[in-house]
């Protein structure tokens, strides 16, 4: 069975990664994030929109650099920061705080159908639906133009 040992292991690894993503939705909470595009896509890695989140602004007392955050639903239905700290805490998501905004790597790029990236970039007002797991992992599920 030595000949097929590696394809077997490799299939299992991919399977585990897929499972980890689905688990985020099974155990996590859904949020809507207000988003806006900020950078052109990179055709080498496939077409995606780089996103930043204007609502994710930390309060005072947080230093720039690595931060850990949790989210809650704001009054207008869009997610805002619930708790933020420079120290890791249970259930938090790791992000970077600089230039007034918290940037969460797991929410930063959204892959879109070939040819549609420009449309999202021009629309400017976007929203992302994402599931956040109790262990801090995030799975973006849907990107849409925001209608307010």
């Amino acid at each position, binding site marked *: 069975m030595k000949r097929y040992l590696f394809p077997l292991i490799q299939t299992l690894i991919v399977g585990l990664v897929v499972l980890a993503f689905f688990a985020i939705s099974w155990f996590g909470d859904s949020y809507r994030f207000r988003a806006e595009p900020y950078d052109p896509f990179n055709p080498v890695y496939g*077409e995606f929109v780089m996103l930043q989140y204007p609502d994710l602004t930390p309060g005072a007392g947080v230093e720039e650099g690595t931060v850990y955050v949790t989210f809650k639903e704001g009054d207008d239905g869009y997610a805002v920061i619930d708790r933020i700290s420079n120290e890791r805490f249970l259930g938090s998501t790791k992000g970077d705080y600089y230039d007034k905004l918290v940037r969460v790597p797991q929410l930063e790029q*959204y892959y879109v159908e070939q040819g549609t990236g420009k449309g999202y970039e021009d629309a400017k007002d976007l929203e992302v639906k994402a599931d956040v797991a109790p262990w801090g992992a995030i799975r973006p599920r849907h990107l849409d133009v925001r209608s307010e």
Partner: protein
Amino acid sequence: MSWQTKLKEWEDAGVIDAGTKARVFEYEGKLKREKKRFPLLVVIGLIFVALAIMSFIAANWQAIPALVKIGLVLLLMWAFYVLADVSERRKIWSPVAFRILGIISFAGAIVVTVQTFHMSQQGTFLAWAVLLMALGHYFLWRHEAYTIVAFIAGINLLTTAGQSVTWLEWALLLAVGLAWFYFSQKPLPQLFSWIFLFGSGVLLWSLVDGYDGVLWAIWTLFALVPLLFLIKDEEARKKFVPIYLFVGGAASVVYLAVRGGTEDWTVDMSYYESAALLLVALAIGYVGYRWFKPLLWLVPLGLFGFALYDDTAIALAAIIEIVAFAFLIYSERKDHSLVMPFVYFIAVQMAIYFVYAWDRLDMSLFFLIGAIIVFLLAGIAWWLRRRREGATT
């Protein structure tokens, strides 16, 4: 000129007869059939083609359901392994190439998965997975082509891990590098794992809190010396030593260029660190004296800790100049290859010239004198070569 043309020329000139020529052709033909070498370029070409296909497909597949997409790439991966199996049993094509395509498909499957779930590709997961699988392939089948894949994944891993490496990840890097080095015992995989270990060693210094020094390159090089004892074959050990000299030489020129070229030197330095470096260099010198003579050439690097305090960088330049000259003379006397000593010697002269002449000379004068120096050095090289050829004939 190819050897075939040369043979024809010799035959025409009457140096060899037709029979000799025919025998040479027959011998070379047999040799070629015996050592069917694996075309490295073909492997690299295949890697790029496969990557391009993966990326193209991934970009256009948004309409297909996530799991189907991932399943299709996995299917492709299995197809390559089945083809590898078939080609191995029937002794046709190349099983190694198919398995490499299998590994690349595996990487493709992860990329597709990550894109499907809109994850950032900045993590080290992909590089780790490919590195470990490629090494697994190597240790199962012992074909060096797999270590090329492992090496590419390893370099990718080091660059993506970069500044954000954690202690746990660093320990894993070290463990994998050491296992790779120790269990391969072949020159090419050991060279790859050595470079991988050197890169991992360099990452350590961004991990250590409060270390802002610049001696980390020398520390890392010194720390890798004990690796020589992990090479089981005596001859292979001796052949591995020049790598240390090469990296040490390159590092010395970089130190000189940076120190000499920096006006306001604000680097954190301590006499303790410099003294410790010198002590370790002496220990390396002992190892060199007992077991690997060429390692003695690394000892002067131990003085760099102190030499870097000097703002004019003259001490540094003097050490390097003396070592480069002594190394050249020594290699000439001992009848060793002069390529490395001479390249190093020229690099040192050029570094020193740039450091001390760039700001002081008019641009045209700078290039004129630079050209004269290069001309003189080339003259010395020519003279040395002539002397050597004269000695052998």
